């Protein structure tokens, strides 16, 4: 993983099942348009060359996305919780590393979409007082996610401060 010179990645990778979840998610988005175009090419003979061209334009990047995105994402999505801070890295194209001190944590929630639930995963959402958005860790084992949320809430509770 390309990294900043002296910054080490967060300790923990997300759950390996996240790769399958991201693949499924990518398929949900990419398969319907491909199928539609293919069906169109089968049915409407006169427009076939155009539809096939469109199919190629859509299908090739889609296939690459499905093939490479989940693994790339798995490599960069990492997290770590210490007594003092939450540290995450994410983003397979636009990389980002975030640190939120524990004293600034406002709420800790877990979120689970239907697809994520099917894979036994959950996401952790750590909000702060900033409107710039919450820190998210997606693709954790759902039991670990729940424990982590509880633990984080406790640690954050132990830190005094008004979190702004």
């Amino acid at each position, binding site marked *: 993983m*390309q990294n*900043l*010179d*002296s*910054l*080490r990645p*967060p*300790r*923990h990778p997300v759950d390996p099942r996240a790769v399958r979840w991201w693949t499924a998610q990518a398929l949900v988005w990419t398969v319907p348009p491909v199928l539609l175009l293919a069906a169109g090419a089968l049915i409407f003979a006169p427009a076939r060359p155009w539809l096939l061209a469109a199919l190629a334009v859509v299908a090739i990047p889609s296939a690459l996305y499905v093939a490479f995105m989940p693994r790339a994402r798995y490599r960069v999505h990492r997290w*770590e*919780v*210490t*007594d*003092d*801070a939450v*540290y995450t890295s994410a*983003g397979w*194209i*636009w*990389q*980002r*590393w*975030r*640190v*939120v*001190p524990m*004293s*600034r*944590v*406002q*709420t*800790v*929630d*877990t*979120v*689970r979409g239907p697809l994520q639930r099917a894979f036994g995963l*959950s996401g952790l959402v750590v909000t*702060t*007082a*900033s*409107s*710039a958005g919450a*820190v998210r860790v997606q693709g954790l084992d*759902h039991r670990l996610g*729940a424990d*982590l*949320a*509880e*633990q*984080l*809430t*406790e640690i*954050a*509770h132990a*830190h*005094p*401060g*008004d*979190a*702004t």
Partner: protein
Amino acid sequence: MTGHRDPSVTGDRDPSVTGDRDPSVTGDRDATVTGRDAPGAGERLDPRTPLLGLRWLLPPLASTAVAMIVTGGRPETGALIALGITAAVFVLLTLGEVARWATTRYRITRDRLELRTGLAHRTRTVVPRDRVRSVDLTASVFHRVLGLAAVRVGTGQDRGADRLTLNALPAARAAALRAELLAGAATSDESGHVARFSPGWLRYALLSGWSVLIGLVPFGAFFRLLDVIGVNPAEVSALTALWSALAASPLLGAAIAVAVILLIGELGSVLLYAEAWWGYRLVREPSGSYLVRRGLLTTRSLTLSAHRLRGAELSEPLLLRWGRGARVTAVATGLPGKSEDAHESRTLLPPSPRAEALRVLADVLAHVPARDGRTAPAPGGESRTAGAPAPAETPRLEELRLRAHPRAALRRRVVRAAVATAVFVVPFGAAQALFTWWPGWAWAAPGVFAAAALAFAFDAHRALGHTVTPRFLVIRCGTFRRRTVALDRAAVIGWTITRSPFQRRAGLATLSAATAAGSGVYRVRDIAPARALALADEAAPGTAPGAFTPFRISPAPGERILSEPGHEG
């Protein structure tokens, strides 16, 4: 799966009420209040309040009058029907206003402010007095004619319905209420006066970037009006004559049109500026809060509690910068997002001479209350005296030496300028190929564009800069709108380093400081990754370790070693 919410972490951001879990504003919509309240439970609004409804009459009356004039006093049936409907709506609105007045009561007790309103749908709003952070008075022209003012009580919370409005009270009563609710509010204007309007500032209104748009408004309104009263523009002989005259010599016509639009736009800008900022005064009250009074027709008096102040920003849009002017806005919490309201109450100084802006900025920064990030400030705006004493620092922005960003950042901007130029040139080339009449000298346009883009690229790089003072993180960026923000280091609540694919190739990174105040995040764009880490360390408040420090493999030379990475979560 349910979320995990710990009340003590979730709820009170405001430490002034420890242990009190009462939300700042309780809107009990029909929940607890049933039946009629005892008469006389609290004070009424001013009985003249329903008269404010008269303002709804003005637009229909005006449009009717115009229609009468245009049609020569022979109104069509359609116009009469419209008038009838207007009258009916007005009667309904007025009845509604009367009902609102009759059913509204407010009460101030020792520890809370209470408002009950609504005829069928009773609403009771309670604001604990120790949560009151701002009391803003607004008086429109109609209010002022009637001697009234609207009072808006805010609690400084980010939540949506976080305030209580009393519309309207007698002006004197409104001012008294403000003084009563805000302990330590200025009793006279002269205490702690920071800045005052000077009519010469109106010239900075001319440098508003919005002038062209403002100039177009009357034309749009004019044609809209013609449409409303059912006149086809093509049938107005004066207009067609004007049009053919302009079409006869397109260049001259275009020049005249542009000149007229600009003239109207600049006039409009000056009028809007005067309406908003005439009589402006910035006062720092004994409590440390800032009070902005302003307005020509509609007068406003807005409070910014010292509690919410986390820094300030100098903003210099291109034209204003060329005219050596600047604006000052507060970086404050609890002024949510991008709403008109928030924008209004954030502006501490309107476009004015740059020297004045720097002076006001320094004054505000010197009075940002000290907060060490872990201990809560004391209630009632006394944090400046109660907390740790603020470091004796009055940062003069013009004296700070900002650290420039690497050459690679300049290269990125030059590349962007080149791309923009290419996008501009392509249609030119196409036009050249397609139209035989396309004049050769038109190629001057892409040339000028390229030169300007390059100049802006260099200017944008010159604008980039950052530094850390004992109390503030100072970031400057932007060429079309240069912003220099000084953010209290203790107000940073999270750090992010981001790298786009282009930044990775150029060996750059962006460091973002998240905060509860202002725009929520302030970015130091395009610096070396090692510098981003070092900056996050330097900007940590006081002697606290840098956010990324525990997660570094080995400390850089000269860095302090603070702790081993904490145990796993």
